[in-house]
């Protein structure tokens, strides 16, 4: 896969072009998940559990069935047995069977001619529950004698296999050297405990889909998703149908951040469409999005770091517990792999657990697991710098991984940009800018692996020499522009002559999700290879036209030209010339590539945050924020900056305001944007960005993923700034006004 790095001057890569889908998105034409209406379409709603943990004794749907305008009423009994499917947890999460495992868990659904009728019918379904004690925190779940959520569950990865039922789904350990010895050698040791709450991705567009299925079992689904091929395979598993019978079209997507990489409504809509023999549309309300989609894990952690008096690390230790929600699958492994990834530690011991609680099953959220882990790790690096009286950037530079270092998670790093980011931070004017009275400054590092995975692309040459790129990644933040830029660069034609289509599962080659910061890297690589495939064919056509050998033709600036010294009297042929003549030289010109991309270059970042604290109310305001990140090569710098700024805003929200607040029964008390408060425009300053470009050696242009790394560092950067401003380390997020005020008051006493 590895290709020689391109060192040429780029013509269009790195320019700030207008995205091809832009006009439709500023005029209201772009069709998102809820924007499709079909003739005869019904509207579906889900009846959800009022209990966080209960046994379903019986469900009586007869009253709902009898209502005028109701076409389908379904329950778990209308789905294949969860245990007989390839993914029982997914199936049971889509529709509860014997037990409900969180408040909001789906128990039944209705499709009717209007929302009013559907809601009335759902309310008429009678469910008899036997309430059980809910398990609502890591500590409760792991306590002796804890209520067991799933009697069948045993701890995976435990040192000693046990046959005792447990809520601990997985144990994991990473270690190297002798951590006790490392602490014995340390001149200074810092230790701390941290906690982070459940938070939500907060995409503005709620989940939505429209499904139809015919009498032969062939289904069409339109939905808002980060990966329509995954919707196809996951829905096929839940319904035990053939993927070939399921065609999924991705609508435009109104944000996902990892939360739209799984399925909730789609199989439900398909089953109801089959019963009703009509199209069924389903959309979640915002309240349902909070209660019943997949938020990010709450965590608890303990960190201990030892160093020599000059700052050299001798030992690093971490324990991190992730709440998985009602089914196994919190981001334990990536979290543990990230926590100390930026540093060379001769001795480390990193352990953690993935634990069931009666809350919604967590889903991916931008660099899943890393923000929680690195929040704790980077707060302790800050404490270490304070104790050693070393500049926090210098401490990190001294211990930073670089090319050739062995990562805590195993492999050796190739070219990476961590030191370059640290040095840029140190030199940044915002690092030395005078702070106002009462302000504080924090710094933190961020890290994410980035993914490669499978992608396909086709490049079609139209008869006038314009080009259509066909790919399979929903465009969540300008990726059509990046694909068109890469195709334009390769083909040597203007960006404006390229159109990019995100095609459905029957029209595009198989492609993994828009996630893992992989699209520009992996699908971009497929577009580059497909474009190169086109160039090979264009050279063949030119050679045939000129009656010379293919090897004697070169492709330059969008033209076929003979090699120097060959047949000097022929005129160069443009892409349009060759396309116009394609019928006479062999027919249409179509390029394609499919690949499983390896070698996604890891992403590093450094963030600087300045905060001001209102000592009367405890409110923290971020007054200045600087995000520095290695992008490898920024294909479209504005969209790279946009990722950095958006990730910063989400990280600031996580640090300062956002949290699921539960009552004693496990009911979320703030399931709306009024009380689950994400940052608004007046909460934030401009977010300064600096893109570092240390090329990723495995990508033809040096691209590394950029989408996820930006959310990792802001939590600790803000927390460290609050520590700086107040002199107090508050070790639980969010740093909301009451919590900060309480800490300030306690410190005064």
């Amino acid at each position, binding site marked *: 896969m590895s290709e020689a790095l391109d060192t040429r001057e780029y013509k269009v890569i790195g320019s*700030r072009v207008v995205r091809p889908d832009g006009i439709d998105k*500023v005029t209201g034409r772009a069709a998102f998940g*809820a924007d499709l209406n079909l003739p005869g379409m019904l509207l579906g709603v889900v009846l959800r559990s009022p209990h966080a943990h209960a046994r379903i004794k019986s469900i009586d749907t007869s009253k709902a069935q009898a209502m005028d305008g109701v076409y389908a009423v379904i329950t778990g009994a209308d789905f294949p047995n969860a245990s007989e499917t390839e993914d029982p947890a997914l199936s049971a999460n889509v529709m509860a069977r014997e037990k409900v495992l969180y408040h909001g868990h789906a128990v039944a659904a209705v499709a009717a001619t209007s929302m*009013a009728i559907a809601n009335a019918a759902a309310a008429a379904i009678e469910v008899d529950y036997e309430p059980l004690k809910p398990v609502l925190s890591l500590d409760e779940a792991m306590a002796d004698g804890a209520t067991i959520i799933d009697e069948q569950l045993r701890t995976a990865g435990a040192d000693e296999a046990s046959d005792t039922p447990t809520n601990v789904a997985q144990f994991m350990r990473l270690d190297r050297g002798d951590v006790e010895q490392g602490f014995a050698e340390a001149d200074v040791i810092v230790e701390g405990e941290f906690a982070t709450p459940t938070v939500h991705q907060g995409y503005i567009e709620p989940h939505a889909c429209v499904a139809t299925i015919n009498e032969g079992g062939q289904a069409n689904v339109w939905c808002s998703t980060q990966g329509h091929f995954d919707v196809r395979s996951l829905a096929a598993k839940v319904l035990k149908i053939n993927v070939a019978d399921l065609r999924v079209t991705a609508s435009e997507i109104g944000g996902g951040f990892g939360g739209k990489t799984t399925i909730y409504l789609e199989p439900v809509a398909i089953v109801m469409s089959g019963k009703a023999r009509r199209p069924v549309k389903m959309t979640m309300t915002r309240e349902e999005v909070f209660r019943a989609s997949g938020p990010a894990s709450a965590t608890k952690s303990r960190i201990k770091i030892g160093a020599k008096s000059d700052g050299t690390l001798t030992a690093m230790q971490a324990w991190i517990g992730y709440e998985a929600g009602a089914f196994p699958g919190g981001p334990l492994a990536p979290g543990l792999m990230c926590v100390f990834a930026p540093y060379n530690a001769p001795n480390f011991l990193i352990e953690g657990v993935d634990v069931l609680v009666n809350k919604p099953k967590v889903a991916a959220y931008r660099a899943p697991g890393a923000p929680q882990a690195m929040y704790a790790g980077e707060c302790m690096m800050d404490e270490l710098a304070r104790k050693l009286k070393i500049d926090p950037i210098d401490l990190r530079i001294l211990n930073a991984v670089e090319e050739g270092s062995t990562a805590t998670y195993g492999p050796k790093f190739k070219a990476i940009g961590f030191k370059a980011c640290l040095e840029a931070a140190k030199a940044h004017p915002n690092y030395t800018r005078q702070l106002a009275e009462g302000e504080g400054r924090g710094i933190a590092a961020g890290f994410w692996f980035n993914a490669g995975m499978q992608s396909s692309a086709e490049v079609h040459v139209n008869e006038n020499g314009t080009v259509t790129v066909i790919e399979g990644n929903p465009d969540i933040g300008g990726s059509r522009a990046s694909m068109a830029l890469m195709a334009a660069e390769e083909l040597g034609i203007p960006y404006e002559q390229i159109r990019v289509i995100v095609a459905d599962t029957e029209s595009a080659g198989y492609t993994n999700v828009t996630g893992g910061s992989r699209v520009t890297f992996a699908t971009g690589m497929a577009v580059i290879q497909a474009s190169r495939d086109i160039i090979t064919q264009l050279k063949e056509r030119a050679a045939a036209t000129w009656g010379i050998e293919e090897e004697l033709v070169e492709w330059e600036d969008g033209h076929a030209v003979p090699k120097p010294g060959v047949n000097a009297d022929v005129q160069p042929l443009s892409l349009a010339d060759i396309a116009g003549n394609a019928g006479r030289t062999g027919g249409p010109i179509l390029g394609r590539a499919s690949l499983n991309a390896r070698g996604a270059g890891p992403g590093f970042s450094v963030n600087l945050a300045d905060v001001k604290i209102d000592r009367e109310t405890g409110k923290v305001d971020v007054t200045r924020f600087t995000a520095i990140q290695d992008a490898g090569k920024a294909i479209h710098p504005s969209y790279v900056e946009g990722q950095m700024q958006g990730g910063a805003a989400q990280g600031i929200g996580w640090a300062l305001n956002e949290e699921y607040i539960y009552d004693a029964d496990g009911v979320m008390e703030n399931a709306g944007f009024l009380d689950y408060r994400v940052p608004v425009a007046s909460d934030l300053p401009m977010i300064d960005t600096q893109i570092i470009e240390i090329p990723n050696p495995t990508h033809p242009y040096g691209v590394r993923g950029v989408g996820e790394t930006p959310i990792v560092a802001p939590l600790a950067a803000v927390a460290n700034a609050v520590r700086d401003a107040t002199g107090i380390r508050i070790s639980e997020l969010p740093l909301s006004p009451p919590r900060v005020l309480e800490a300030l008051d306690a410190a005064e006493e």
Partner: protein
Amino acid sequence: MSRTHVTTTVNGERREFLCEPQQSLLDVLRDELQLTGTKEGCATGDCGACSVMLDDRLVCSCLVLGVEAEAKSIDTIEGIATDEGLHPLQEKFLEHAALQCGVCTPGFIVAAKALLDQNPDPDEQQIRYWLAGNLCRCTGYDKIIRAVQDAAQTMRGEAS
């Protein structure tokens, strides 16, 4: 359920629709009039994705009943570009890459236009407070604020 007949003006055109008493203006625009450019992010007045002008006043259409549109004039995202082309705000949102997923964009453009129509030269803080009812989860607002500032400058006839 009995439906009420409503006559209204949408983007300068006379429109009629039948509407249930509990239906919001947002639902009417999207489901009865097929104007799906106006988005629903919350239906509780907290996200601004559903922003429209009702008799020249900026409102969350999810908080207005469909029947309240009787004899009123409604302007939506679909009415902002003209025969002359895109509105400067639309141009500048594109130029500044002020949208990533784009689902918040119609609401932001409608709300920002309402600001610039009454204050052609807002400062950064005024823009931030005016747009505080519009949530964007993708951009961190930086590029949105800059796009609005740049559009204001263009609309004032100053070179950017």
